């Protein structure tokens, strides 16, 4: 383990300097710190043309053709519910939400710096992480704006479909708590910030930095992941290493992580202060963000019907095998109910309660239609705190936390 002594170093806030300050600082940091500090690590690996990254064509070669591409610059893509009928989300169907370009990083040269309010600053390589307690968990990752297009009016931002922008693969990695204990967290630590290595096309573009509260950082499921579904992380999902903050909005998990900084307060920067916020007290649809806005954290209870897909056709007398997934950020799924009469009456689905702490749960019910024609099935999950999915979640200016009851139509032929 390569441990370096503590030294005076620039906080992450300085990465949000103006363009000229940014370039000057990067050059100075590189010269002064020999390429091992936060900015220096960017310099150490980034070519002169740092923004280029891996072409989308190469990224998409590893993805299924059912992925809908919402944007190529930056790359955002996902599949809706009917393409999610797997117990574990395959890597080829895992959603992509880049903020900037997909960086091409050399895993053998990549370093993760741990700094800030710690007793010992650490510089960890991929090999260092592999010598620690590596373990695997299945866990949800879901963009804060997943389902955004179901809100009216539709807020700006990635137009995720009602069931887009999420997935539940298996992750391999090391608990962040183990890393932080090795560094020794000092008194006064409040938040832990992550810096990603992705860069945009202009040097004025600030890098992606977000922070999470200390309690979530020390929770054992929060990890630095190096693998996905039993294989090495693919570049677009954060290779060689990324943070994973399971159950929380996807933006809390930073891909291509190169620095962890323990802070005395939440990180101040555009990805904390301008995005991923919701009103503390709900506002009317169309209103602007109030001053009392809060940072988004854990996902509320949510479910989706993964089978049948939209507008399937059945013959009279045929069983309709309903199947779906239910999940919640910081609780567990107590029950899932289905309705075949638009919510007038509900039937309890069978629910697989076992599974990893932050993984979705499978539910199912064999439905024998009593009538012909077009009809619908609604799914509503309830968590162990007694919270159930609403029909229409609270509108908010940036379109986060859509968890409305999911509805799928099918036709029974006479």
């Amino acid at each position, binding site marked *: 383990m390569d441990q370096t002594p503590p030294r005076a170093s620039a906080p992450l806030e300085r990465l949000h300097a103006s363009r000229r300050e940014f370039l000057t600082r990067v050059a100075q940091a590189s010269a002064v710190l020999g390429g091992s500090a936060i900015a220096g690590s960017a310099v150490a690996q980034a070519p002169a043309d740092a923004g280029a990254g891996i072409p989308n064509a190469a990224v998409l070669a590893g993805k299924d053709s059912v992925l*809908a591409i919402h944007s190529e610059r930056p790359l955002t893509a996902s599949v*809706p519910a009917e393409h999610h009928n797997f117990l574990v989300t395959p890597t080829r169907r895992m959603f992509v939400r880049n903020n900037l370009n997909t960086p091409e990083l050399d895993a053998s040269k990549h370093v993760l710096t741990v700094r800030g309010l710690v007793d010992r600053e650490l510089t960890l390589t991929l090999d260092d992480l592999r010598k620690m307690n590596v373990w695997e968990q299945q866990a949800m990752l879901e963009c804060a704006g997943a389902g955004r297009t179901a809100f009216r009016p539709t807020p700006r931002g990635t137009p995720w479909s009602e069931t887009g922008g999420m997935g539940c693969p298996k992750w391999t990695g090391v608990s962040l708590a183990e890393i932080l204990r090795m560094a020794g967290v000092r008194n006064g630590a409040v938040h832990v910030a992550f810096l990603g290595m992705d860069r945009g096309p202009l040097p004025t573009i600030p890098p992606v930095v977000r922070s999470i509260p200390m309690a979530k950082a020390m929770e054992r499921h929060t990890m630095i992941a190096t693998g996905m579904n039993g294989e090495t992380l693919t570049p677009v999902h954060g290779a060689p290493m990324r943070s994973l903050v399971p159950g929380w909005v996807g933006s809390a998990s930073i891909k291509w992580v190169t620095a962890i900084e323990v802070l005395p307060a939440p990180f101040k920067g555009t990805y904390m202060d301008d995005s991923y916020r919701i009103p503390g007290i709900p506002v009317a649809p169309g209103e602007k963000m109030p001053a009392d806005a809060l940072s988004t954290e854990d996902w509320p209870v949510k479910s989706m019907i993964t089978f049948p897909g939209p507008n399937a056709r059945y013959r009279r007398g045929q069983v309709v095998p309903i199947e779906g997934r239910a999940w919640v950020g910081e609780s567990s799924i107590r029950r899932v109910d289905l309705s075949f009469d638009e919510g007038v009456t509900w039937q309890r689905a069978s629910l697989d309660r076992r599974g990893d702490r932050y993984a979705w749960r499978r539910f199912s019910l064999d439905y024998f239609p009593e009538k012909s024609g077009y009809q619908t099935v609604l799914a509503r999950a309830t968590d162990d705190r007694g919270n159930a999915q609403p029909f229409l979640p609270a509108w908010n200016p940036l379109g986060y936390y859509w968890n409305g009851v999911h509805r799928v139509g099918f036709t029974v032929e006479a």
Partner: protein
Amino acid sequence: MPGCSVRRGVHAPAFLGSMLTAVLLASAPIGAQAPATPEPTLVPGPGMELTMQRCVICHEAQHITRSRLTRAEWLENTELMIKRGAPVAAGEVAPIVEYLFTYYGRNDDGSPRPRPAGAAAAAAPVAPAAGGARDVQALLATYGCTGCHAVDAKLVGPSFREVARRFGSEAGGDDRVARRIREGGAGDWGSIPMPPHPAINDAELRSLVAWVFAQR
């Protein structure tokens, strides 16, 4: 469900490593990041060229065309983009917001605002000077070229002189530069993409390219 765009990406065969892909794409006539089909463009109108140049360096015009926002929301969004590195000068905020609200606006009740009549018509072309030649200075201003390029200094994009030296004597170099002006794209000079200029007509393109190639 609105907003589910169709797939536009190109699929390289899975066996191609990214290195090989990069080599193959680098030799293609349009740069490595050019999409398979042209990116969507903005509705022509006052402020459209400026908006394209300032916004479409970093993201597709689609991020705008899929939105309908109030004036206050467009202003807030433009200010956010400046915080996130958009090269927008103070005096450019008002014309950009005016354009965005005029053509991609919604009312406070959520209903989309009707676009001005004739919005689909192309921007008025620069009138030909005597003898049919275009006033290149007027073209440079109309299409905002000098926001990113100078004659002999690299700004956001390469200098006109660099472009002239690299492509001025190459067979088909004029067509190549003309396509890049009209369709936009990246790859010849790095990763910063040139925004497309779909409103430019053939005669204007010829005049501009000839002038650029004369700067060597």
